[in-house]
């Protein structure tokens, strides 16, 4: 018998879909999720340093306080907030709401704008409080 599995249709991929807001935010949701996966190493480093004593804590704090560290943390903040807002959109869809074309496109754009705005807001507050 012929190998049936080879001819099974594949689901459409990045290069098949037209680049539209909902599609872009869908793949960005996955990319930010993947980034956050490895970003947990930063949280682990921070917590372990805090548990290991003042010397380690200061070293990790110095690393996070450096320009590269701050850029990475800024990106991490954005990825987290973007994924969080994207997740709320998914919960809405899971509950059966918000599938209308115009509305979901607006929400996809809003997701990006809101995640950037919130990231800037969080960092503005951190810098002001400090």
């Amino acid at each position, binding site marked *: 018998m012929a190998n049936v599995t080879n001819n099974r249709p594949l689901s459409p991929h990045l290069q098949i879909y037209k680049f539209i807001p909902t599609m872009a935010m869908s793949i960005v949701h996955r990319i930010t*999720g993947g980034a956050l996966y490895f970003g947990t190493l930063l949280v682990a480093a921070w*917590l372990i340093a805090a548990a290991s004593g003042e010397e380690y804590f200061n070293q990790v704090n110095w690393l996070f306080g450096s320009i590269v560290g701050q850029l990475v943390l800024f990106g991490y903040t954005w990825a987290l907030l973007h994924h969080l807002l994207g997740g709320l959109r998914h919960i809405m869809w899971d509950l059966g709401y918000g599938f209308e074309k115009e509305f979901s496109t607006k929400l996809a754009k809003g997701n990006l704008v809101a995640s950037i705005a919130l990231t800037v807001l*969080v960092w503005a507050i951190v810098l002001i409080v400090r």
Partner: protein
Amino acid sequence: MDMRTPLGKVRGLGSAKSGTEHFWRVRTTSVALVPLLIFYIVFLIIYAGKPYAEVVGALANPFVATINALTVIASIVHMRLGMEEIIQDYIHSEFLKLTLLVLNAFFSLLVGGLCLFAVLKIAFAG
């Protein structure tokens, strides 16, 4: 010649009956993570750049330590399931897929274990 019908061949090789469980756990952890992470972000806004004694003192607070531990647990479950989905979607070679799924489980548990130990050590021993 193989006389078995295509249906007969695939019987028992189909769904592992765990798809709903996967879906449900991704959703429950994501809902839990919304308030937990908002708390975490506020906590970090307050304590970012603060001296060691002050940060550790705050982390040792029973309420903060509990929230912290719950955030770690919900996060590792969520991230493991999410990465599982990515691996299953993009990796088609069976051997590589299984290897990555095992590494994914190990990585999540290792990171989670380290974080939990750190949180508990700070809470109990300072």
